[in-house]
């Protein structure tokens, strides 16, 4: 069901944990739906110098969190903002259709964390683009 890459990032997740005094935090998901993703960022000079996560969820959710934090580490905020759910899924060599929403969660968590930082800095939060895959997630967990 899962690609080897997913299994690798699930079995040996990178960047698990919290960051003390993070620059920004983004939490998305809902325990009722079976997944919560929390991403912690440490930002210096508009660049993500550290990213960590804590996730409650399925294998794909954990792997997506791991991959997403890997992808954004070292990136500028503008670059990190552009890391899409598709990019996460592709870096994982694909996700099963019913699990695509996990990559969406990862993208959303990054955005939330970045905006958390921006708001703390007194900046305007950036605006979310609309995900066409987003509807899917809501369909899947209609609780």
């Amino acid at each position, binding site marked *: 069901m899962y690609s080897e890459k997913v299994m690798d990032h699930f*079995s040996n*997740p990178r960047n*698990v944990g919290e960051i003390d005094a993070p620059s920004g935090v983004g939490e998305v998901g809902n325990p009722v739906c*079976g997944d919560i993703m929390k991403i912690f960022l440490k930002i210096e000079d508009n660049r993500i110098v550290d990213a960590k996560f804590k996730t*409650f969820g*399925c294998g794909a*959710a954990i792997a997506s969190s791991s991959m997403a934090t890997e992808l954004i580490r070292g990136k500028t905020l503008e670059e990190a903002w552009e890391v899409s759910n598709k990019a996460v899924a592709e870096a994982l060599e694909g996700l099963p259709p*019913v699990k695509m929403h996990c990559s969406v969660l990862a993208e959303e968590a990054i955005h939330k964390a970045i905006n958390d930082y921006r708001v703390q800095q007194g900046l305007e939060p950036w605006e979310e683009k609309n995900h066409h895959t987003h509807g899917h997630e809501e369909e899947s967990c209609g609780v």
Partner: protein
Amino acid sequence: MCGAEAGMGIAIPASGQDMMDKPARWEVMQEKRTIYMDNAATTPVHPEVLEAMLPYFTERYGNPSSVYSLARESRKAVEEAREKVAKAIGATPGEIFFTSGGTESDNWAIKGCAWASGKKGGHIITSSIEHHAVLHTCQYLEKNGFSVTYLPVDEYGLVNPADVEAAVTDRTVLISVMYANNEIGTMEPVREIGAVARDHGIPFHTDAVQAVGHVPVDVNQENIDLLSLSGHKFNGPKGVGALYIRKGTRIGTYEHGGGQEKRRRAGTENVPAIVGLGKAVESATAEIPEVSARVSRMRDRLIRGLLSTIPHSRLNGHPEKRLPGNANVSFEFVEGESMLLLLDSIGVSASTGSACTSGSLEPSHVLLAIGLPHEKAHGSLRFTLSGDTTGGDVDYVLLHLPGIVDRLRQMSPLYKPDEKEVKCNVQ
């Protein structure tokens, strides 16, 4: 036993925090074994069952409906299997009809009775914890003019026969309550529910797919009019099952076509599978006294072990009125699939909710029906043991699951390591 005892008795591998700091392939961390604890999903065909089946694939392949010798051999084999199935549940051979499995038996029983009732706007009583083969069939009938009462269950998953009685109306055409639940293992008060049905002259169907071959079943003593069973749940082949139909029960044909099964279920008989079903049900039923006692003991040890070593855990289903092989436990703050994957990586096959719902994101309707909040329902595991399970298998799970749960909890934003377990989940 209380969460306070957590960590006592059984060694727990190094804590998750440690692992996160130095990632290592979990798989290579221990000697890998193969432990199958998902017998409620399906079982291997036992060697003597396969052996009985083999000739019917290649040499004795005749179509039982034909007249020549080759065909008569097949007919004989089918009728012998019918006798074995009948004997296993206390029925007569004429009341056994072979199907393609539990799902078809359930579909046939429910749709067949609904349609045969002749009552427009008929009413069906069932429970809220039935297998989807029953629930989705009932929902389908609701879209087609029938009304359905889905009875609630108590915290252990028990249907109250008084609720059945209260739900009966003069339009009720069928009562269908499962014999034993596939997820939490709870055994329903079938005899009492059957008595209510009989009092009102309503046919009573029970989905006994998880019960037959595992606990003694008797259609007469338990007031059952229709009963579904499926071969692959007791070491018989997949794709074959039976519907018991008490003589005189009004039921329509579901599969239309040739004159097989006394013109009630069309389709060329699946002779090898039917032979396998007969053999498997005979062996499984004969072994019930010995196996169920042995398996129940292992189950209880597994349940006690898990509850005592893993804090924030609880048993789902009834502590005593449960299938010999079923252990269903919820672990707070973690999600089921990730536990399954880690178990799989050390060679343990188990399930979360039921095999049919895994892969979907909805938590199990059974766990919700017994009152579990969604987040706890997501964190439940089902281990289903069989006569092939060994004490060593149980030890292995008890040794490794605490570490797995801990590892995932360390990753979980919901888990606060210092959190004290407030409720005491005694078994």
